[in-house]
């Protein structure tokens, strides 16, 4: 069996979502190749080649692929698909954008957000915001799937795969990159952080969010998350949203401050090892999943916590 794993990277660096999806690929078993599609992406390819258990790294570079737009990227993966039984990608926004397009080009039904490998063709995945877990068996000859990073440990280094440069096929040419606004930050990334501090609607304003949450996060060396309500209100950027339709995280420690605990939020953080909830309402649903709760005003509790660390 042969598996092709689409890497998540920004040309310069490989995100650890790739190493997590690789673990799922290894559980399926077979020869695993990693595809790096981008431009000026040699560094990402070299990082992928070091991961344990990789047969080879395919590096495809072109102007069209620089920003990994779905149309050229799907055309590339389709052109490689003949050699593979499984086509996988991490459930990142890039993976979610491109893999269903690949699946349809191959006339295959994608399996989204795989959280466990039960056999060659059988997988578990969450539905209804994680309120139910389905075990699904695929009858397609090729399996196209995205992997839920929070459910798998990252594979470590230890390999020395070769990097093979391949041609980038021309895409349909119906899309073009215009611009991007990617925030630079020294804080850990949400999906790989060991500690996450998340703030909700209770913060009340962007100023308060910045004043109360950020310094404490820095003290904890934590990534910062937010509820949808906090993002909608402009207290935090969209890519900080944790939940069913945001990022799914499973850190060692998740602190939810002023977040009620709607199912859509819980879907994104319920698998964290230790959950702490800070809420002034003792009946807030977040306490039902929290290992430790403090009932009180976050505007007093968080600064005190910061001081006592």
């Amino acid at each position, binding site marked *: 069996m042969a598996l092709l794993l689409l890497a998540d990277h920004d040309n310069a660096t490989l995100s650890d979502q790739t190493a997590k999806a690789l673990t799922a690929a290894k559980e399926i078993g077979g020869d695993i190749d990693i595809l790096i599609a981008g431009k000026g992406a040699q560094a990402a390819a070299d990082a992928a080649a070091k991961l344990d258990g990789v047969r080879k790294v395919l590096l495809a570079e072109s102007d069209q692929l620089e920003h990994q737009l779905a149309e050229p990227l799907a055309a590339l993966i389709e052109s490689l698909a003949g050699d593979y039984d499984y086509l996988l990608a991490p459930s990142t926004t890039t993976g979610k954008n491109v893999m269903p397009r690949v699946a349809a080009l191959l006339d295959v039904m*994608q399996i989204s957000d795989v959280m466990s490998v039960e056999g060659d063709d059988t997988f578990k995945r969450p*539905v209804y915001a994680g309120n139910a*877990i389905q075990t699904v068996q695929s009858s397609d000859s090729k399996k196209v799937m995205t992997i839920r990073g929070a459910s798998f440990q990252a594979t470590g280094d230890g390999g020395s795969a070769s990097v093979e440069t391949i041609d980038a096929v021309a895409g349909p040419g119906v*899309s073009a990159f215009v611009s*991007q606004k990617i925030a630079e930050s020294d804080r850990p990334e949400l999906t790989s952080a060991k500690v996450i501090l998340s703030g909700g609607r209770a913060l009340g304003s962007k100023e308060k969010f910045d004043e109360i949450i950020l310094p404490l996060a820095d003290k904890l060396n934590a990534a910062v998350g937010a509820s949808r309500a906090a993002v909608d209100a402009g207290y935090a950027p969209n890519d900080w949203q944790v939940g069913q339709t945001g990022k799914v995280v499973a850190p060692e420690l998740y602190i939810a401050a002023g977040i009620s605990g709607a199912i859509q939020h819980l879907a994104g953080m319920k698998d964290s090892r230790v959950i702490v909830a800070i809420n002034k309402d003792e009946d807030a649903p977040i306490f039902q999943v929290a*290992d430790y709760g403090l009932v009180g005003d976050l505007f007093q509790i968080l600064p005190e916590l910061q001081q006592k660390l």
Partner: protein
Amino acid sequence: MKILVPVKRVIDYNVKVRVKSDGSGVETANVKMSMNPFDEIAVEEAIRLKEAGTAEEVVAISIGPDKAQETLRTALAMGADRAILVKTDEIVEPLSVAKILKAVVDEESPKLVVLGKQAIDDDANQTGQMLAALLGWGQGTFANEVKIEGEKAEITREVDGGLQTVSLDLPAIVTTDLRLNEPRYASLPNIMKAKKKPLDTKTPDDYGVDVAARLKVLKTEEPPERSAGEILENVDQLVDKLKNKEGVL
């Protein structure tokens, strides 16, 4: 131009979904159903494009049981012009939905199809991308902003690191994210008016699409339960627990 908006009838997002004890699925009897929230955002966006004079007609479509008519009537009450129900009692997977939508697009020739990014029941996040593939069109998924200028659509997308803007040739596919707009409520007069708007009924057979599932659901189960822990008295106790008991600080 014409805009096609696929809307799915799903269990309302406020309902706590329960798994059936025999593992055969989730409880749907006597459960409140609504339009998938991302599809409300899609309908809203289409209507705004019509109000801005960019679009002339908004057609809503749903693939589902007879009751999905209610979902379509909601779209009509919000401001869609007409609706198509592709009637089936089967659970239709995104790939088959995309194939039906492709057939409808071939018939209706819309310039834009606006879908939700994700149905909150199957949480698949696939249909829009699949439809784009089948049509060979560009896709602007997880849209935060949609601008139509001449024969191009400029879509700003919510991506993992922030925002990305792409330019697509029309016709194109857009899928909505939460921040694209705030959907309106249908007013009572508009709900009344919607009852008279045209609603066509078709079947998957009419479009020659086989809706047999590719994924067999072997089992549906509850996620592992997390139990409520301790309520602590003060911050000192919390620091102590996190440091000494959990070792996470």
